[in-house]
């Protein structure tokens, strides 16, 4: 494969890839009199259109993606992204609309937003939704702000947020930005919240418990009702990280589990593409009690017209300039309508079936710290392979040689050497079997030829990267060859 240079390195003075029509108003120089103008934009590229197209096409070919194959990145729900949703989000009437357009000229957009809010409320059993958060982490932050605002009104915002040790790293980070101190709740041998431990920690200083259900081990919190009761009895709230709802859609609803606030990631459960790291969308759903605190504007309906309601005195304000990542919402709505109620339930059923098929097929080859039944994902570890000096990262990198994307390794922190595997519902048995066979082959290689794993990958565009040097001597931009010193 051709090694693609940086665009700056193929730049040549005077080359152009685009032309604007000639200026059609009389040109005036005096308007620049008081403006601080720049000289040329130093280093900015100058290339032709064909060079642009080749540059990005060549670069694209070095990416692995869901359209190419199996992507069992745990907790990320890398399901297939239906192409029709892209087409629908490109309808001109959606893409051309200005966010400050008078609302009677954008009734279609408001219908999209309101309908999506209502459908998400039905799917989750919550009472109201805000679609403003641009991603899951912003949804979490907003969700915690709603809790805080409500507690403040009751007279005391409280100080502590409880978070299980199996949680995603954003949970403590969001709680912290919201002004809370985090206390960790230990998981028990089943991988779930220890009810007694929770009861001990749950005081009137605790604002909320942040949970994930099924949790990041893929295990359902069977005592969720009891957990909610303990927290509620001391005046606290249940926050659920619903980024990944793939195991529950159509089967069980967080609202019915007495969850008070939830955020969803439309770019996970609801199939909108991840785009190499966004844009996502992280809607927040609440029970009636927290409804008054949702961001403005709230979308309402008067007779046959959708309206924007800014008059919400208790609102926490805004987390986005406009209405959130609108086009992402369009795609998610298209997805929900395309599947319908039965299709959504089938998502959960097949996601859990696929995951259990993988678990069963590999449980002799890879260690499972928790033997509790799992739902949409399961977390293997490298414990057996470590005996041969092979770590989860080596297994992950070797999978690349077999044409599969590696599972998640960075968490849950309670499983050392984790390989968090989530197949999603869209995968064929053939692709599942390819993965299973590769994992078995790798387990065999770990015993017989560990070196081949430790030096993997062997076939990719680049091989294992020197990440230590990248962090110690950061080179964060092209500088005509000069390195940036810290």
């Amino acid at each position: 494969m051709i090694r693609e240079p940086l665009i700056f390195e193929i730049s040549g003075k005077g080359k152009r890839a685009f032309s604007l029509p000639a200026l059609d108003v009389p040109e005036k120089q005096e308007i620049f009199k008081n403006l601080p103008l720049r000289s040329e934009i130093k280093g900015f590229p100058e290339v032709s259109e064909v060079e642009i197209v080749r540059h990005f096409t060549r670069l694209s070919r070095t990416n692995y993606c869901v359209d190419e194959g199996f992507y069992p990145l745990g907790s990320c729900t890398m399901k297939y992204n239906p192409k029709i949703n892209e087409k629908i989000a490109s309808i001109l009437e959606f893409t051309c609309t200005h966010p400050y357009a008078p609302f009677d000229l954008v009734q279609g957009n408001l219908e999209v937003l309101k309908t999506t809010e209502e459908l998400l409320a039905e799917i989750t059993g919550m009472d109201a939704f805000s679609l403003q958060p641009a991603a899951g982490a912003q949804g979490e932050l907003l969700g915690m702000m709603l809790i805080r605002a409500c507690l403040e009104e009751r007279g005391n915002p409280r100080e502590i947020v409880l978070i299980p040790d199996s949680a995603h790293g954003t949970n403590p980070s969001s709680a912290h930005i919201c002004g809370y101190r985090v206390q960790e709740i230990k998981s028990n041998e089943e991988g779930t919240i220890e009810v007694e431990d929770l009861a001990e920690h749950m005081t009137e200083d605790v604002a909320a418990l942040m949970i994930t259900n099924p949790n990041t081990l893929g295990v359902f919190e069977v005592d969720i009702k009891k957990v909610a009761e303990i927290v509620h009895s001391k005046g606290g709230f249940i926050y659920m990280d619903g980024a990944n709802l793939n195991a529950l859609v159509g089967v069980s609803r967080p609202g019915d589990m007495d969850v008070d606030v939830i955020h969803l990631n439309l770019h996970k459960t609801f199939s909108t593409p991840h785009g190499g790291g966004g844009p996502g969308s992280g809607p927040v759903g609440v029970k009636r009690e927290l409804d008054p605190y949702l961001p403005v504007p709230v979308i309402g309906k008067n007779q046959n017209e959708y309206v924007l309601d800014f008059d919400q005195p208790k609102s926490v304000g805004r987390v986005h300039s406009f209405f959130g990542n609108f086009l992402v919402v369009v795609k998610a709505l298209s997805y929900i309508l395309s599947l319908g109620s039965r299709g959504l339930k089938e998502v959960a059923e097949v996601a859990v079936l696929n995951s259990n098929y993988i678990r069963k097929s590999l449980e002799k080859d890879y260690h499972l710290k928790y033997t509790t039944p799992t739902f949409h994902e399961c977390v293997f570890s490298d414990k057996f392979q470590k005996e041969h000096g092979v770590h989860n990262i080596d297994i992950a990198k070797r999978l690349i040689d077999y044409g599969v994307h590696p599972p998640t390794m960075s968490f849950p922190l309670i499983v050392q050497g984790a390989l968090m595997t989530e197949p999603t519902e869209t995968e064929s048995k053939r692709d599942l079997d390819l993965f299973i066979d590769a994992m078995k082959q790798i387990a065999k290689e770990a015993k017989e030829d560990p070196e081949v794993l430790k030096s993997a990958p062997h076939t990719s565009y680049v091989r294992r990267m020197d990440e230590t040097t990248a962090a110690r001597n950061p080179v964060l931009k092209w500088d005509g060859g000069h390195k940036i010193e810290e």
Partner: protein
Amino acid sequence: MSYISLSDKDKKEMMARIGISSVDELFLAIPENIRLRRELSIPSSLTEIELIHRFKKIAEGNTYKDFLSFLGGGAYPHVIPYSVDYLSSRGEFVSPYTPYQPEVSQGTLQIIFEFQTLICQLTGMDIANASLYDGASGAAEAVLMAHRLKGRPKVLVSQTLHPQYQKVIKTYVKNLEIEIGEIKYSESGGVDFKDLKEKLDDRTSAVVIQSPNFMGVVEDIEKISEMTHSLEALSIVVVAEAASLGILEAPGNLGADIVTGEGQSFGIPLSFGGPYLGFMSCSKEFIRQFPGRIAGETKDIDGKRGFVLTLSTREQHIRRERATSNICTNQALCALRATIFLETLGKEGLRELAFQNIQKASYALEKLTQIKGIERKFSGSIFNEFVLDFSGDLNKIEHALRKKNVLAGMNIGEFYPELENCLLVCVTDIHRKEEIDLLAASLEEVV
């Protein structure tokens, strides 16, 4: 539609291996009393063709495209070269996750690296990140960052920072010990230096301004930064109209410490406000407190150049509650669009685009202020927006223009009660001379 790839035979074989006879057995861990015992109340599934019909019908409710519009205020229509749509819709860009595995994500990583470079070149700063959600969250993150760096309780924010950015900042800092002070604007529409001088003190972590500001006026970044630095506070410059960077001096060369803003102008359609593109850059000395994902250059074990996500010890998945930000997913695909846009326009093209914006907006300003009953509100120099003051009833005028399918701009009275009869007008490269003339003629008739 269904996107399931298993046949009945597949399912049977898989269940046999698991040792179950029905998929329901896999859900037994969910207690009876919280299982949904009915179907979701959602319409039954639609085929592709039905979906298109359904959404075309919904889209008919949007009549905005039939209007000649001069709306701006943080969302700007500009040309978008066709190659941006074509290249950014490749599945290799659209369907991967965040590039955690660099060996199979070099495309995304190299593009982030190029994006960071372009943002540094445009803003005149040392380092940039892979993107933030939008201009508003960029401004809020900059405030949090300055507060971490300085530890002083106060942040001064210009009243002419986009009102919704101000609102988002207030939402973000609400639960932290940061007090927000407002800096007034002067008759020129720029920062009131006297007011700034009075409010700036040694309790101030940072001063946040926008340039061009919400009134369209280009600020004296150099003077404001100088004043800010005299009290050892940080100068944060927000750029809501990034196209201005094509011709105006880079804020980094005028003393800014952190430059953040909205990159929507770089190849991203208006899309009713999102997804957009937050960008952020700063001096290298602040790197440890810098939020968001960052790509860096390194080598693989064979010595080949490659790129990785780096400095992740700042981030939530390592540092949890002590992270510099909780952000993980950002706006990668929008950053890709911006990268294609900027590299396609190139050095001359971006300057030409910015040049045309100033020329066309100035032409419009001159033309419109010749109309009796319309005056220019602020005297400061502009980029592609300006505020007009109407002697007649603006609501009535807007109403009359609506009948002519013209939206002359944004009535900013709802944000600034003292400007209740004022209109913010935005003119960009997409507006042809005939359209500006039509706006003038329409206004002439109704004012």
